[in-house]
């Protein structure tokens, strides 16, 4: 949609990242690239620092060492104004939605619009309604408060807020956790659709193998304090690390793979002439 800032197609560039809390080192020499328009899934065991990585990239956690470049800007060295300009181009979906509980869904979506743009109220309400619809919520959801929403609707409302300013990069922290399989599959499809139509780059943390197989272009495995491998699923599966093998070749991994490959076959039969 927009031209890359400096000719590079890497929208996220993490180099030599080191995070540590007290004596406990979470990341050490971590490198990761995310290219424009792709969906990258980050996996790793509990406590491997997936959320810390996300927080480091979006600037909520200052790493002990290393650099993070977002959309070509070095976030460690950038001035306040420059950093805010980049942050406006990022949308974040937190694990539990993090909707403001005192505001209705529509007001939640309007918060970033109010803060960063000088829009008339009526126009803002129309844009908010549009985002709410794009996130797959019914129109009457806008007037509801977060406490009145189900788990799946909270995620969608939070997604609507995350895309309020048409971000270039969308960060998702376990987007399908706590959703039923139908809701999770629908959410996966929604992210795919938004990526196609809005030209988003998506960085997502997940434990959901179905999500990995369905929507991720590349998978980054976080292990031993760094990114062990970041590549397409086929290649990651062939990585001969014990943890990776157990993750993808365990009973759940195989089931997810089977399900996805068979559904892809069915899709191929059903629409053989598409494009």
């Amino acid at each position, binding site marked *: *949609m*927009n031209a890359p800032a400096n000719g590079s197609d890497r929208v996220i560039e993490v180099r030599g990242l080191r995070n540590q809390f007290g004596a406990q080192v979470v990341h050490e020499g971590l490198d990761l690239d995310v290219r424009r328009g792709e969906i990258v899934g980050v996996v790793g065991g509990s406590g491997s620092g997936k959320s810390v990585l996300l927080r480091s990239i979006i600037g909520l956690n200052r790493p002990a060492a290393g650099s993070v470049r977002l959309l070509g800007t070095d976030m460690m060295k950038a001035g306040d104004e420059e950093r805010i300009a980049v942050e406006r181009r990022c949308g974040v979906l937190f694990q539990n939605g993090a909707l403001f*509980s*005192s505001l209705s869904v529509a007001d939640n979506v309007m918060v970033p*619009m109010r803060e960063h*743009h*000088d*829009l*008339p109220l009526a*126009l803002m*309400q*129309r*844009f908010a*309604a*549009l*985002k709410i*619809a*794009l996130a797959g919520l019914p*129109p*009457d959801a*806008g*007037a509801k*408060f*977060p*406490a009145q929403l189900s788990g799946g609707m909270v995620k969608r409302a939070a997604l609507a807020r995350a*895309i309020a*300013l*048409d971000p270039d990069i969308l960060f998702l922290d376990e987007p399908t956790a706590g959703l039923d399989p139908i809701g999770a599959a629908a959410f996966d499809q929604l992210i795919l*659709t*938004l990526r*196609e*139509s*809005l*030209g988003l780059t998506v960085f997502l943390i997940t434990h959901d193998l179905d999500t990995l197989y369905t929507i991720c272009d590349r998978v980054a495995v976080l292990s031993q304090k760094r990114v062990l491998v970041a590549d397409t699923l086929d290649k990651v599966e062939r990585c001969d690390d014990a943890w990776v093998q157990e993750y993808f070749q365990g009973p759940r991994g195989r089931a997810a793979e089977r399900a996805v490959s068979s559904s892809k076959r069915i899709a191929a039969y059903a629409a053989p002439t598409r494009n």
Partner: protein
Amino acid sequence: MSAAGTATLRHGQDGDVVVAAGDWTIAAAPVLAAEVAALARRHGRSLRVDASGIARLDTSGARLLLDLAGERGVDGLDATRRALVDAVAEADVAVKGPPPADGGLVALLARTGAAAEQVARDASQLLGFIGLVLATLARCLFVPRRWRLTSLAFHLEQTGLDAVPIVVLLNFLVGAVVAFLGATVLKDFGATVFTVELIGYSFLREFGVLLTAILIAGRSGSAFTAQIGSMKSREEIDAIRTLGLDPVEVLVLPRLLALLVALPALAFIAMLSGIVGGALVCALSMDISPTMFVTRFHDLAATRHFWVGMSKAPIFAFLIASIGCLEGFKVSGSAESVGTHTTSSVVQSIFVAILVDALAAIFYMEIDV
């Protein structure tokens, strides 16, 4: 950075075309929306739009393009932008206006009625809850196995011991202030020595216990509401129930019993420090020496007044703990609800404490104590 978006009408051979150019993004939306509205007013949605000159397009811009021309009327889009416009068109934007704002006399009456109803409901709920607590207390009192001593000790420390410094300081200062007031008023009558009586009466009968109750309502009643409320919103109360335990027994009784012990003890300390504060002012600015203060104090029949004051402490404790815990149980879901109920808990506790104090004053006056 490219220029802000524009929409210009151009008359061509095959009808009028709107040429869109520049950035059609949310930043340019206010200006664009006005232009679009003006064009649409004059020409309806029958215009065609040439969008090939657009530098940047986002969903907000796409929405405005659609307002101008409808889904089929936008030309000059590449595949990506076509997908964006289609997605926006597909998202069924049934804009619901905000609910009509009600104002004026009707709303005033409605809110007054709702508030009155709420007060009645709160009162009946509180009575019901007090009954429940008393029944649970009666059930547990004679079964030592069900006494939660650890929890009781913890709450004793939190509500009692930790509150001592602030209670002492506050009452000491108020005691000094009352002594100054007494000195000023009584000097005209040459009766400054009666300041001792003033301090004794006021602190033993009223101030000591009432100030403590108000402090504890703000300090511990609110804490009870916030603790139980956040447990409620995180489903911990439900977990307690499913484990076969009684939330009233587990959560309310230790807090209630702790306050029943702590508040009278604090009230006693409050009386002492208030009187010391008064005595200090007497000694420093009125030539009433501490010895003289104590002697006069003895003539006061102080024990009687002391018991009048102390008799109110357990009642305040019981009410503050009950209100605090009940408000906690009323919390629903959100963090905001915790805040609302904490406020309500403090307001109710202080109101009830002062109300009961006034009733007690009338009662003791009537029976001539």
